[in-house]
């Protein structure tokens, strides 16, 4: 993709499309209102990276990991980071508001309906389906991203170890990351030499 090597003062050519603030806000409003059932970040990846190409895969991935370590809802944090990358502070604010405000209105309406009418079994059933779709989106993203990993033993082992410890054994994420991140980054530093 970055075929023409920037030989000027700029070390890294910016291949970022210019995205207007209203467009940015509109996109995150759309994402904030349709992303049910967990896996918020996979839906964001689908739209922002896969379909719109606003940020590249590496930017998204490193931003996503940072977003998961920093406190706060993961999806909101990633949105904030992408908004910041694209349009600075105003973009960050627009992305966060886009993710929260419409969802805030919807949840209050749902709360009201729930008080009036009680629980509907059909709604419950559909929500299970949307959660399953969220898992599908997460798998798509994992496969796509996993394909781009460098093919060496240390990298594969790290990915498998994180999956096994956090996913299969359900250990708390923070201690696992505290142990594995320094190792993984250290290996990457050594490999560069």
């Amino acid at each position, binding site marked *: 993709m970055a075929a023409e090597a920037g030989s000027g003062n700029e070390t890294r050519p910016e291949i970022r499309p210019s995205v207007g603030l209203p467009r940015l806000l509109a996109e995150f409003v759309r994402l904030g209102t349709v992303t049910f059932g967990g*896996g918020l970040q996979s839906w964001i990846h*689908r739209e922002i990276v896969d379909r719109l190409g606003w940020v590249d895969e590496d930017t998204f991935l490193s931003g996503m990991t940072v977003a*998961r370590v920093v406190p*706060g809802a993961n999806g909101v944090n990633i949105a904030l980071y992408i908004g910041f990358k694209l349009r600075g502070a105003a973009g960050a604010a627009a992305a966060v508001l886009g993710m929260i405000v419409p969802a805030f209105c919807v949840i209050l309406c749902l709360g009201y309906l729930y008080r009036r009418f009680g629980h509907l079994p059909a709604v419950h059933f559909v929500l299970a389906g949307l959660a399953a779709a969220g898992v599908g989106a997460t798998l798509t993203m994992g*496969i796509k991203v996993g394909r781009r990993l460098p093919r060496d033993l240390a990298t594969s082992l790290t990915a498998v170890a994180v999956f096994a410890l956090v996913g299969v054994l359900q250990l708390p994420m923070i201690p696992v990351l505290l142990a594995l991140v320094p190792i993984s980054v250290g290996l990457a*530093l050594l490999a560069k030499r």
Partner: protein
Amino acid sequence: MLALLLVFAPLSILSIGGGQATIPEMQHQAVVVHSWLSNGEFADLFALSRAAPGPSSLIAALIGWHVFGFWGAVAATLGMFLPSSLLMYAVGAWWHRSQDSRLRRAIERGLTPIAVGLVFAGAITILRAAHAGALVLATAGAVCLLQSATRISTHATVGAVTSIYLLIFYFT
């Protein structure tokens, strides 16, 4: 109202790894410490927050609304999202500025396999919570295939899954 802010702002800073991490403490604060609602009511609000779009920590809005009406919901939401967002902004800005240093490149490369592991771990965690049956697995597989093979949008995917599940629900 101030009490709402004082309960949710610390939770915001503590919600490392996502909103779900703070649910037990939120329940303790709202039910036991402040007795704003009963255990059953909390469970209902939790289900609702999972049913709504957007981040699941918006359960804070429902609790605030339950206690102090609309402005309570606003106060609780601000308390839940403002502190963590400011922190994320500071970290994100720093991360953005340190571009192109050798250390940063190494951090980026080192974080990639961790991110991939976390993505798959996230999938399995949702599957566990959903008590995966054949239908759930088939849906997840179908969505994954469809997204890999086509450029179908998120909105089309959500719409299609909703319609199919409604059909299954009413015709079986």
